[in-house]
């Protein structure tokens, strides 16, 4: 209720951009996305590929989009976003094997970002830039991105190029039994290692006809630095315990295709396919199908199903299978071979008079999904999106 009042209090500053080109900074829309995620499994990388993966995460993300037109009638959009995740993890609690509830049991991640873009409607071009930051106990990240987009002459197609760089620091939190001094020290005692990610994302969207539009997506991602996690254990065949060791360079190439089709008056077919490959030997096929059905103009239900087949990295082996002669090794099942199924449904409600009668609370979306991985990992997620406009 307090949230509704907060949102309603912004309503007087809202401006309809389609009729009036405001040179004053105005709120375009505000989105609040809240999620609860829980998972369980028995292949924790922290304990070398065995042990609980139980994890709970509460995530809240507030995104405020502002806009203004400049003297040349170009639309400037400012996106100010802040996200806060709080999680409890039974596996990261096992950084200290003797602990029942240690300092690593829970953590909070805060990740603000600011993005700006300027759209020149006559030329059909958009340029943009953004900054992001993320902080949690053992991981800090600073990100920057640049964007360029150009529409085709008939405005039915658009090419977008985005360059992203993340300069990250991993705190070297080692399993307690592998520390020279043993036991926990202060955060400053751990030391850090760099992890840099550089990504070029290209996409092309095309309207095929009045019912069908498609998108081609391609990323080229280069990562350098410390690419494992220091508290992931690996047990060798001789029973000895080691820290996960992975190459300090990784090149990823995902290629995606999306097609959305409006069939009849009520059914929409949203489809997505991705092929992924990298130089660690991982390759994957992901297919996603979602079928939103409009029960009426204001309410829709969207069942969905996502399937992934992943061929794991050559550096993966389960508990006590790696040999001392190997250079690189991990028992992280996220990098192993598996099939995964993710299914559920979303509900979208956007009444004319606003959700709960609040005029500017334009829509509410609720979505639930169940994830099942062939390694035994299972998870559930429920998310809520409130949109104020």
């Amino acid at each position: 209720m307090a949230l509704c009042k907060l949102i309603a209090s912004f309503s007087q500053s809202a401006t309809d951009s389609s009729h009036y080109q405001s040179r004053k900074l105005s709120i375009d829309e505000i989105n609040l996305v809240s999620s609860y995620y829980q998972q369980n499994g028995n292949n924790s990388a922290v304990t070398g590929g065995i042990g609980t993966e139980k994890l709970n995460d509460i995530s809240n993300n507030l995104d405020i989009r502002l806009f203004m037109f400049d003297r040349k009638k170009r639309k400037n959009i400012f996106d100010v976003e802040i996200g806060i995740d709080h999680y409890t993890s039974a596996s990261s609690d096992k950084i200290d094997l003797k602990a029942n509830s240690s300092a690593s049991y829970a953590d909070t991640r805060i990740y603000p970002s600011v993005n700006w873009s300027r759209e020149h409607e006559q030329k059909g071009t958009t340029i943009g830039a953004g900054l992001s930051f993320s902080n949690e106990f053992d991981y800090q990240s600073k990100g920057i991105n640049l964007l360029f987009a150009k529409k085709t002459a008939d405005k039915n197609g658009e090419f977008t190029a985005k360059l992203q760089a993340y300069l990250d620091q991993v705190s070297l939190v080692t399993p307690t039994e592998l520390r020279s001094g043993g036991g926990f020290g202060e955060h400053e005692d751990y030391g850090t290692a760099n992890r840099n990610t550089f990504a070029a994302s290209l996409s092309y969207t095309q309207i095929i006809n009045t019912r069908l539009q498609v998108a081609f997506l391609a990323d080229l991602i280069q990562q350098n630095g410390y690419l494992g996690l220091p508290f992931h254990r690996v047990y060798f065949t001789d029973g000895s315990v080691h820290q996960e060791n992975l190459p300090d360079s990784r090149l990823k190439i995902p290629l995606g295709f999306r097609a959305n089709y409006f069939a009849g008056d009520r059914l929409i077919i949203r489809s997505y396919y991705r092929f992924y490959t990298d130089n660690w030997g991982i390759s994957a096929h992901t297919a996603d199908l979602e079928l939103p059905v409009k029960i009426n103009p204001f309410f829709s239900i969207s069942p969905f199903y996502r399937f992934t087949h992943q061929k794991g990295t050559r550096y993966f082996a389960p508990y006590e299978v790696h040999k001392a002669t190997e250079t690189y090794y991990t028992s992280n099942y996220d990098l192993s071979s598996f099939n995964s199924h993710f299914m559920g449904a979303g509900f979208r409600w956007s009444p004319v008079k606003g959700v709960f009668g609040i005029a500017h609370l334009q829509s509410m979306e609720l979505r639930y999904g169940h994830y099942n991985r062939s390694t035994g990992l299972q998870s559930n997620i429920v998310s809520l999106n409130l949109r104020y406009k």
Partner: protein
Amino acid sequence: MKNSMIIGLLFACAISTSSCSSVKEYQKARLNDAEMTLSNRRVQKTETSFQVYREGASGANGGKTGGGCGCN
């Protein structure tokens, strides 16, 4: 595996080049529907994030590519 990729790419090229018709702004009512956006929904934000953590494969979805978090 390679054959299925080639067939997929050919299919994608075929539908995107052979049957395009120029659609005017006033004909875009269905295309502009909120369910027709060519990107992940905003409500999927955390979903996409957990998939980046739980799977080695990521990217090509207009969102996260692997940096910025202690994920893969």
